């Protein structure tokens, strides 16, 4: 078996051909997976919406509004859900950069009167077994049916009403901050109807 000699031309040619083939095949796979990737992302969003909002019959993804905020890096997304043309609820994506390993992104569903219906975690990189417990029902439960105007979203350690997760106070703080951001946006841009 004779190896190609390491002449200048041979080296350039070999690397050129390899990068060309690699580039072309990556482009091809990217094209192939573009559709399913977007679909998987959308599906996740729709499933999250179904979980945090009361029953609705419109397509909140189509009615999504984006609001620029200086608090979040990206614009904040607001989803409005209707049932028989009446407001059924609003879902807001709140985020915090202060998680134990950076970004924590949650979707908070509000009832028309501004109380929290449910929360799901969209993105997180917290410690498995500690911070990831914020996905558990046991933790989320304490937010349901609470009105953030009277229910302080900070941890009890910081003078709020939220029981922090054992060993994951930082995660709990980030979660509370993200929920607070979602509520602030709701108050500012989609006034809840107090009755």
């Amino acid at each position, binding site marked *: 078996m004779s*190896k*190609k000699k390491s002449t200048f031309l041979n080296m350039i040619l070999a690397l050129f051909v390899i990068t060309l083939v690699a580039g072309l095949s990556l482009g091809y796979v990217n094209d192939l997976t573009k559709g399913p990737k977007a679909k998987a992302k959308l599906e996740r969003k729709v499933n999250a919406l179904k979980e945090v909002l009361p029953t609705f019959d419109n397509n909140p993804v189509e009615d999504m509004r984006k609001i620029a905020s200086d608090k979040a890096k990206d614009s904040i997304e607001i989803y409005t859900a209707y049932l028989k043309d009446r407001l059924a609820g609003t879902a807001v994506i709140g985020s915090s950069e202060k998680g134990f390993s950076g970004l924590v992104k949650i979707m908070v569903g509000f009832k028309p009167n501004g109380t929290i219906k449910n929360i799901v975690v969209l993105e997180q990189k917290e410690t498995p*077994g500690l911070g990831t417990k914020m996905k558990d029902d046991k933790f989320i439960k304490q937010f349901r049916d609470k009105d953030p105007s009277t229910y302080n979203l900070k941890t009890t350690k910081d003078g709020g009403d939220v029981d922090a997760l054992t060993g994951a106070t930082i995660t709990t703080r980030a979660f509370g901050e993200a929920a607070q951001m979602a509520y602030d946006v709701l108050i500012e841009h989609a006034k809840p109807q107090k009755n």
Partner: protein
Amino acid sequence: MAEKLNQKQNFLKGIIKDNPVFVMLLGMCPTLGVTSSAFNGLGMGIATLFVLLMSNIVVSLIKSQIPAKVRIPAFIIIIASFVTIVEMVLEAYIPFLFEQLGIFIPLIVVNCLILGRAEAFASKNNLISSIIDALGMGIGFTIALTLLGAAREILGSGSIFDLRFVSEDANTMILFILPPGAFIALAYLTLAFNRISTKTS
């Protein structure tokens, strides 16, 4: 017959005699980083197995065309391409696993196990041997990561493959799902593995 026996040895060496994790201590970054649960270990192992298999095949096929002085960059391009393909496919079809493994998927590129096999084995051996080598090494890596993940999950979360066997409120040894626990668990598993394999051989 002798050929067949050799291939069997070639396959088994990756699992036992030259196990990439417990014996050669290669690919420590994903080994320590993702094994906080058995499922994560298994997912990472399979993703690595696929990349290793594909890169060994390609390297073995084009080995005579690569000038020796640029072989490392050539291998890296090949490996990085397959890793990117794995990343795109996972994101599109298994988003759950994609989320779990996160940053560790792109890091497969710098897993020294894969480059090590390309350099030490596939660039010197024929296609069939390289495939068997990749399968043996990949499966050895997967078994090791799953074992380590399982040990850490059992001790740290009181569950195995996400099935809890202790109550919600039980105090588990959280240390084991944190980074220091990875080192401790790996050390004891390596010890046990080498103890058993030296005794049996």
